[in-house]
């Protein structure tokens, strides 16, 4: 982040140097290059001018020279009289005087009579047309190729006074000329000519042969390496003077400047970058300082940072940041406290307490965790108001805080507190628990209103009872549950209690699945009419074999179902199974009534009647075939609701039976007002009570009471013949028990009824004989 700003700053500063620098560099280089090129051009022009001047002056020299020669009387005489030796010597003399490279004397026929070039002597002059043209006033200045060399020639007649011959004087266009030109103008000079039939241009002389060849090679006016200019020298032979300047030489100064500028520019950029870096670092230093301060706050370090040495805006900002930091620190402390503490009491909350237990448990050799529940707190809250309840909680918290030698105290539920302390021995812990209980037992007086909180304390020991807070808490909760039921109001967790609860949890979980997947079965226990000794009804009893835990007693899982809210689906399942079975039996011609148990919760279900009716109609079973057994205690929970439901059922033709009669605490008034038509005496009055006179008297009273209330009586748990006989004598209507049959699988019921009914009768009679005998 700071890099980005610093980069921008850096870019700006460097840009301020680089861009004008580049512009200047380009401008200077461009101008210099132009200058260099212009200089080169001007040198070339100078060269051309010098060349033309030189050629022209040579031409003039030739003309003057030839005129001097042909005016010389002696020469004329020598030519006229054909004195070869004289002519030759004069030619040599004259040519030495003007430094001519070539002198010829021709006769009128164009025959060379004398020559300074031996190879041309006594030859025909190779350019007769030149003579003719000269005679007709042709060019005085021509260039011709003679003996493989180029010559600038002037030709003049020898008059004595009539023409007697020709004199031809020439300057060679040679290295000397090129060298002179080159030294005068400073350019490389070459002479090229087109000779021969093929029209190819050849180099005759060159001060720099390579350059000339390069020119001839690409024929371009401006090759890359050479600046080139040409000038026509002679008209007769197409002689071109090629003037060349090496580009690198012309641009050498430019190149040097280029490098110098580049170096200067490079250094200045480098320097400006260094300066810019230093500058931008200096500018961004307070920013970085601030960034570090912000970073510390971000990472949760709220300490006062180093002092800022400057007194500028950044310092102001830094101070503001300090204020902000203080604010954040306070807020964070508050938030943390709120997150970890109970707002009302200021004690640790449950999460924090668990966290601390987990954190500190390994360090504590032995610890005791006391779960304290104010069992009357809810009542206090509802009767004395919430504010009062809060005051109670605060008072309790205060007391707990004052109890010495605790590691942590926390509020772990609405009326729950938890205390963690070192535990030396079980006895010591127990004594502590008693002291806490006694402290809390003292009624709390708030504004004159006294409240008793009825504390209960569950105790677990670590590591004996667990290593994790969740485990310890769960077990403490179990112990607490026991403590609530305990007179001492204190209970220590015992190993294994947790497992029972786990089993219950597992059963509750699996039962849901069992209902859904039809893992349950219904067994039917026959009921026998004591007078006719026939079986006309059965009681539907649900059975469950758990895939892992094996057979589970109905008492257990039904209780669990009631606690876990599964009783309604369970009841419905049983209803459906039993009614369907009833329909099956009916098809087989077996006419039975079935008794089905309803739980107290079922009675609270508004839809139970509707469900029953639907099932009955669906399987086409008469309502009179169905008896609904309701426990006495179930009726007591909500008598009104129960009465409404049962009345409704009765009005629909169902038989209603009071189950487990004698265990509840129902009043006789309630019993009389119930719309029941049957009473089932609890088996505790029947089982193994054959010889109990009190029990028999009680049975007699119940039966006569029931009969007086127009209730038929069913006795459960009939396992012996003597009990059967006793009940028979007591005028009990129906018997049910192992004496007659254990609960049977549905498919066995029909057989049992068909086969065993008469046998049963006989059996009973036979045993009865025995009894009579006995």
């Amino acid at each position, binding site marked *: 982040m700071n890099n980005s700003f610093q980069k921008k700053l850096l870019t700006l500063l460097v840009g301020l140097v680089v861009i004008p620098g580049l512009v200047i560099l380009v401008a200077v280089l461009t101008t210099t290059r132009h200058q260099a090129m212009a200089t080169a051009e001007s040198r070339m022009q100078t060269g051309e001018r010098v060349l033309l001047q030189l050629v*022209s002056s040579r*031409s*003039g*020299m030739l*003309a*003057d020279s*030839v*005129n001097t020669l042909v*005016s010389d*009387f002696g020469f*004329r*005489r020598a030519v*006229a*009289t054909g004195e070869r030796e004289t002519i030759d010597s004069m030619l040599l003399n004259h040519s030495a005087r003007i430094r001519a490279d070539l002198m010829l004397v021709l006769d009128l026929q164009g025959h060379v009579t004398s020559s300074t070039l031996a190879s041309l002597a006594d030859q025909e002059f190779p350019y007769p047309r030149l003579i*003719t043209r*000269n*005679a*007709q*006033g042709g060019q*005085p200045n021509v260039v011709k190729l003679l003996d493989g060399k180029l010559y600038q020639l*002037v030709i*003049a*007649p020898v*008059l*004595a*006074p*009539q*023409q*007697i011959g020709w004199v031809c004087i020439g300057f060679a266009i040679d290295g000397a000329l090129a060298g002179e030109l080159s030294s005068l103008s400073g350019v490389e000079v070459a002479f090229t000519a087109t000779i021969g039939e093929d029209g190819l241009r050849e180099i005759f002389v060159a001060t720099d042969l390579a350059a000339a060849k390069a020119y001839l090679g690409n024929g371009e006016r401006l090759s890359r390496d050479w600046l080139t200019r040409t000038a026509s020298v002679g008209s007769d032979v197409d002689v071109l003077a090629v003037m060349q300047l090496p580009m690198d030489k012309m641009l050498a100064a430019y190149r040097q400047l280029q490098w110098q500028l580049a170096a200067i520019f490079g250094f200045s950029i480098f320097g400006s970058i260094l300066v810019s870096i230093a500058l931008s670092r200096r500018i961004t230093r307070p920013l970085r300082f601030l960034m570090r301060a912000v970073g510390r706050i971000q990472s949760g370090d709220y300490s006062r940072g180093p002092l800022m040495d400057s007194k500028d805006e950044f310092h102001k900002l830094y101070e503001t940041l300090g204020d902000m930091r203080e604010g954040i620190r306070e807020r964070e402390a508050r938030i943390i406290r709120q997150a970890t503490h109970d707002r009302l009491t200021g004690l640790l909350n449950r999460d924090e307490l668990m966290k601390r237990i987990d954190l500190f448990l390994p360090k504590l050799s032995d610890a005791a965790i006391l779960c304290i529940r104010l069992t009357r707190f809810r009542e206090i809250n509802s009767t004395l108001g919430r504010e009062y309840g809060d005051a109670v909680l605060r008072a309790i918290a205060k007391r707990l805080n004052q109890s010495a030698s605790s590691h942590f105290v926390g509020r772990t539920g609405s009326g729950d507190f938890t205390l963690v302390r070192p535990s030396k021995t079980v006895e010591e812990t127990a004594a502590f628990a008693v002291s806490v209980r006694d402290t809390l037992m003292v009624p709390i007086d708030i504004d004159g209103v006294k409240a008793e909180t009825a504390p209960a304390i569950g105790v677990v020991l670590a590591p004996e009872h667990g290593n994790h807070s969740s485990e310890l808490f769960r077990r403490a909760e179990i112990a607490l549950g026991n403590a609530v039921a305990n007179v001492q109001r204190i209970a220590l967790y015992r190993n294994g209690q947790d497992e029972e609860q786990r089993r219950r949890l597992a059963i509750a979980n699996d039962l849901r699945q069992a209902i859904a997947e039809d893992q349950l079965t219904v067994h039917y226990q026959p009921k026998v009419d004591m007078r006719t000794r026939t079986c006309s009804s059965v009681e539907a009893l649900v059975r469950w074999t758990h895939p892992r835990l094996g057979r589970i007693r109905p008492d257990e899982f039904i209780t669990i179902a009631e606690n876990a809210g599964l009783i309604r689906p369970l009841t419905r399942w049983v209803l459906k199974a039993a009614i369907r079975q009833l329909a099956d039996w009916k098809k087989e011609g077996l006419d039975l009534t079935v008794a089905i148990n309803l739980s107290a919760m079922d009675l609270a279900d508004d839809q139970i009647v509707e469900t029953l009716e639907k099932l009955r109609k669906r399987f086409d079973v008469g309502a009179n075939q169905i008896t609904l057994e309701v426990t006495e205690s179930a009726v007591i929970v909500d008598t009104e609701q129960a009465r409404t439901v049962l009345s409704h059922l009765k009005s629909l033709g169902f038989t209603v039976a009071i189950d487990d009669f004698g265990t509840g605490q129902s009043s006789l008034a309630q019993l009389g007002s119930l719309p029941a038509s049957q009473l089932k005496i609890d088996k505790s009055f029947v089982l193994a009570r054959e010889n109990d006179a009190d029990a028999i008297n009680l049975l007699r009273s119940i039966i006569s009471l029931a009969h007086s209330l127009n209730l038929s009586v069913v006795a459960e748990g009939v396992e012996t013949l003597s009990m059967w006989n006793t009940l028979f004598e007591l005028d009990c209507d129906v018997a049910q028990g192992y004496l007659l049959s254990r609960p049977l699988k549905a498919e066995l019921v029909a057989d049992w009824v068909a086969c065993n009914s008469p046998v049963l009768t006989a059996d009973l009679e036979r045993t009865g004989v025995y009894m009579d005998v006995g």
Partner: protein
Amino acid sequence: MPGRSSCRYVTSRWLAACVSLISASSIAGEQPIRVVDQNGNPVVGAAVFIPQADDDASSGAFIAQRGQEFQPRYSLIRVGAEIAFPNQDKLRHHVYSFSPAKTFELELYHGDQATPVVFDRPGIVTLGCNVHDWMIAWVYVVTGRRLGITDRNGTVAVDSDAVPDSVAVWHPHAVSPTGLGDADPGSHIVLVMRDDVILPARPATKTRRQRRSVRRE
């Protein structure tokens, strides 16, 4: 640029054209012989003579130098005749000839100081002045009867009764300067002339610088 000047040569064709405008007049009783070049233009200054005829005995002729010119320009003499060179100018002349027929030199002289020169061999002798390059004159040295030198019309007047069967016509600028011509009076004698003759020209100014123009005779 003075140093640059070179000889300017002008062909003589235009002069010939001027000459041709003047119609030739023939004198009664005389039969003219007319000499023309290959283009039909009159040839001026050609010597016409009859080689086989007897030589007349005329002797002595002179070529004066007047106004820095030879006077006359063309002379026709018999072999062995003598020519005097009277200098009528106030300056000295240096008359010379490199011609094979007669080579001589009369070095700088005044008036009649120069001794006459005897031309003892036939041929055309070209005369020049070493001091004045433009001065030029020709002397035809012949044997036979000399008929004359063609005038501006290229004609030579001949007595009608003396018209020979054949005549010789010489001219220094002819391709064959000392050739023979058909003497057919009333018709033209055609002399093939060179067209590349260069003659010294008199400078326009009186400087000592040499400027030459070409003049056709």
